[in-house]
C-alpha cells in the first residue's frame, strides 16, 4: 500500500534525511515538510478528509510549539480528521520521561530515536500496514 507523509521538524537537515529515508521504504506517494508545528497543524486542520492514511513524523523538541503541545492540539481535533493520521514521534532526547510522555497520546503509534534507519521506520509502519490488511 502507498502512504503519504508529513514531516514536522525545525531542522532542515533532519527533514531532508527523513525524506530520503521515506523514499527508501518505497511506501510513499508524497511528502510535505513543515519546519514548525503550527504550520503542520494548520495544514492538517484545513485539509479535507480523505480515506487514505497520512503518516506524521513529528519531532518532539522544537521552539515555540513543541511536539507535546502539537499533540495536545491534535488530540482535540474532530475524530474524522484524526482518523486520517498516524503520528510517529521522532526524538534525539535520551530522557525516558519525554519518550513515555509522548507515547501516552492516543494517536502516537510509535517513537523513533534519531538517527534511525529506514528499516526502523518500516517496522513502526507495519502496525498500520498490518492493520489495514497488508
Amino acid at each position, binding site marked *: 500500500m502507498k502512504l503519504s507523509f508529513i514531516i514536522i521538524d*525545525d*531542522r*532542515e*537537515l*533532519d527533514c*531532508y*534525511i527523513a525524506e*530520503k529515508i521515506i523514499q527508501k521504504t518505497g511506501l510513499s506517494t508524497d511528502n510535505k515538510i513543515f*519546519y*514548525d508545528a*503550527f504550520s503542520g497543524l494548520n495544514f492538517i486542520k484545513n485539509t479535507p478528509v480523505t480515506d487514505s492514511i497520512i503518516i506524521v513524523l513529528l519531532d518532539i*523538541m*522544537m*521552539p*515555540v*510549539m513543541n511536539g507535546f503541545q502539537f499533540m495536545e492540539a491534535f488530540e482535540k481535533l474532530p475524530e474524522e480528521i484524526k482518523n486520517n493520521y498516524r503520528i510517529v514521534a521522532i526524538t*534525539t*532526547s*535520551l*530522557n525516558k520521561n519525554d519518550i513515555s510522555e509522548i507515547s501516552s497520546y492516543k494517536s502516537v503509534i510509535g517513537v523513533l530515536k*534519531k*538517527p534511525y534507519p529506514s528499516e526502523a521506520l518500516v517496522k513502526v509502519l507495519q502496525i498500520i500496514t498490518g492493520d489495514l490488511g497488508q
Partner: protein
Amino acid sequence: MSEKIKILYLDDELNNLIGFKASLRLDYIIYTAQNSTEALAYLDKNPDIRVIFCDQRMPEKTGVEFFEEVRSIHPHPIRILLTAYADIESVIDAINRGNVFRYVKKPWLDTDIISAIEESNKFYLANSMLSMKNEELRKAYLELDKFAYSVSHDIRGPLVGISGGVDLALQSNNIDEIKEILLLMEKSVTKLDTFILSMHDYYSLERGELKITAIDFNEVVKETEAIFAIYAKTAQIDFKINVRQNEPFWSDVISINLIINNLLTNAFKYQRKGADNKKVTLDIEVFRGSVTIAVGDNGTGIEGKYIDEIFNLFFRASIQESGSGLGLFNVKSSVLKLNGTIDVNSVLDEGTTFTVVIPHK
C-alpha cells in the same frame, strides 16, 4: 560596621525599656515594645531586625512563648532572653521551645548586652551568608539541569543530523545530491559551533571577573562595524551607528562587547523576509556617568506573550531563525553584572528596540 544594627526589645516594664534604649540608642537602632502585638508589628515592618531581646515574665505570655511564636513567622532575627529568675526549667524551655541564642540575667550590665548583640550579629551574618550561598547553589543546580537537558537537544541534535547526513552521502553516487547534503551539514555544523561559542560566553560570565578599563566607544564600534558591515551589505540592510561620547567611561569591555554583539546579531537575524528598507541602528550615548546603548530594528518584532520570557535560559520565541536560547540570557547576565538595566520595546511585524543603561564603574 557602616549600618546600625536594628534591635527589638519587648518588656512589660516601661522603665526597663527606657533604660535599655537610653544606654544603647547611639550605637544601635532600638525598637521597644510593651506587648507582643506591638513587637510583632515592628517585626512585620522591619524584616531586617537582627536581634530580639525579650523579658521572660510578662502578664500576657512568657518570653519563651513569645519566641516560640515569633520563630515560625520571623525565623531570621537572633533571640535573646532576659530574666531575673534563672531556674533550670525556664532555661531548658528557652533553649528547646524558644531556641534562644543567649540568656542575659536581670539586672543586666551594658557590657553583657553589647557582647550579646555583637555575638548575635556575627551569628546572623554567618547564617544569612549561608542562605545566600544556598540560594546561589539552588540557581546553579537549576541551570545545570537545564544544561543537561539541552545537551541532548542542542548539541546531540545537530550531531545526530550530521551523522545521518554522512550515512546518506556514503550511500549516494549522485554528486549533486552529495553536495546538497554537505551544504545542509555545513549549516548544522555552524549552528552547533554558535551554540558552543555562546556556552563559552555563558561560562565566562558566570565565573569570570570583570576587568575595568577606560572604554572608547568609537573604538568599540569600529570592530563591531567591521563584523556586521559585510552581513549588512549582502542582506541589504541599512546599518547606522551613532556614538556620542564626550567623557571618559570605565567598564568591562568584554561584557560591553558581548551585549552589543548579541543584540546586533538578533537585530540582523530577525528581519522580515522580503521586506524593503530593512534597518538596524546602534546608538550609544555616554552622559553623566552612564552609557545608554540602544539597538533597534524594523524586523519581525516579538509576540507580546513572549516578552517576559525572552531573557530566560534556553527560551526561544521564534521558529523562523535558529537560536541557542543563550544570547539574551547572556546579555541580561552581563547587564546585571555591570549593575545596569535592560528594556525592550517591541511591536510584532514592526520591529524591536533594546535599550541598555550601564552606570560608570
